[in-house]
């Protein structure tokens, strides 16, 4: 059952507390969308830890039904559905330096069309909650893909055209969270400035049966992180 839905325009940032037991569905509203997401735990210290998430599930990308894990080994959210088989976990979020190629911009000149990086937006959102740049950690860049080449250095290339309008990903929130996101372009994207917006819908998650749930059954590591979140809420 949907609780609310809203559109975050391209190049913007947003944050909100989201309670455990909710689904958060992100839908790309244009081609080549990017949504850089940080997850902060209820205590506002623990947070999404991408290296721990990736190594525990032997993956260099985020896909369903992976569990997104925290510094302290909690399952913060599970990726319960995705129309894409790759969400970037290696590229980090954009900085002001990545926008320089688009030329100067300011509120004074461009009003609300001024261009701001994901870092600027995410720090702005974190600051509203009493956090700051120390709380920036690796982001998942939903809808983006940075391809790995099988060479000596594992070279990285951003893939243009990876996602299309209508692509979706759904997270099941496993622990009370602060979700912060930016719809600024991926830092490795090479196209003109035309960031796509993202629709955010929050709804009630159906009851989970660990015996049959895809995330609980994905790997032993996924199940143990989910169990730690269950205990944290006990």
């Amino acid at each position, binding site marked *: 059952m949907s609780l609310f839905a809203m559109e975050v325009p391209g190049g913007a940032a947003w944050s909100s507390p989201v309670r455990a037991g909710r689904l958060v569905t992100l839908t790309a509203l244009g081609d080549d969308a990017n949504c850089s997401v940080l997850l902060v735990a209820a205590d506002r*210290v*623990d947070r999404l*830890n*991408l*290296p*721990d998430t*990736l*190594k*525990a599930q*032997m*993956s*260099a*990308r985020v*896909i369903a039904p992976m569990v997104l*894990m925290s*510094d*302290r*080994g*909690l399952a913060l959210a599970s990726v319960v559905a995705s129309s894409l088989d*790759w969400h970037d976990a*290696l*590229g*980090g979020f954009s*900085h002001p*330096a990545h926008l320089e190629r688009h030329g100067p911009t300011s509120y004074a000149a461009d009003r609300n069309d001024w261009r701001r990086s994901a870092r600027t937006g995410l720090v702005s959102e974190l600051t509203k909650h009493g956090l*700051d*740049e*120390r*709380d*920036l*950690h*690796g*982001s998942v860049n939903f809808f983006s893909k*940075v*391809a*790995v*080449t*099988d060479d*000596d*250095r*594992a*070279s*990285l*290339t951003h893939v243009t055209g990876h996602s299309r309008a209508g692509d979706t990903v759904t997270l099941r929130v496993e622990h009370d969270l602060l979700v912060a996101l930016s719809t600024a372009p991926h*830092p*490795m994207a090479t196209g003109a400035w035309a960031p796509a917006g993202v629709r955010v819908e929050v709804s009630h998650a159906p009851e989970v049966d660990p015996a049959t749930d895809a995330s609980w059954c994905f790997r*032993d*590591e996924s199940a*143990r*992180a989910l169990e*730690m979140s269950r205990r944290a809420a006990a």
Partner: protein
Amino acid sequence: MTATTHETVTGSDLDLLVEAGDGALVAVPRGGRLRIVDLHGNQAADTLLYDAADVRNRYSALDTVREQAAVFLTTGSRLLSTRLDELAVITDDTVGRHDTLGGACAQESNVVRYGEHTRHQHACRQTFLAYGAPAGIGARELGHNINFFMNVPVTSAGDLHFEDGLSAPGKHVELTASRDLLVLLSNCPQLNNPCNGWDPTPVRLLGWWT
């Protein structure tokens, strides 16, 4: 210990043996060279770098990887901060590649990866927090670290796993500081995967500050 190690130690400003499972917080001045020697081979040296003037400006694994458009670190890799400042450059590397996506071990992540029976095993995150505390480095200041001497292959199919290391006794990596740094190191105590060859051993830190 190899002859090479003895030869290069002459005139060093720092010569510190870090035992298995121990750590260190080392101030490296701008222009200083810090060498980490894998004395016995296949020993992960979990490392974080901080701008000594402001520990909020810390090493950023993902920014470093993206800006060099490659996953592995080796000679020439610029180690960037969360503000995209160059903190250090890898100026010598006799191993060939090092990991920065595998993160550090923690008691809690050991439970996730290996099970409840590993909860009370020593882990890097405790070492980081203990050695970082005097410099104001707490949980919020712990970013995603470098794992010198560790081998974490990543493939075009999107897989990532831990493999036996490429390092060997006496191999080393050397950083040159681009500004005054604090280097926080945990000599990894992990016993549950091949990152330390199943037997954690000491590393040696050598520094030249001229």
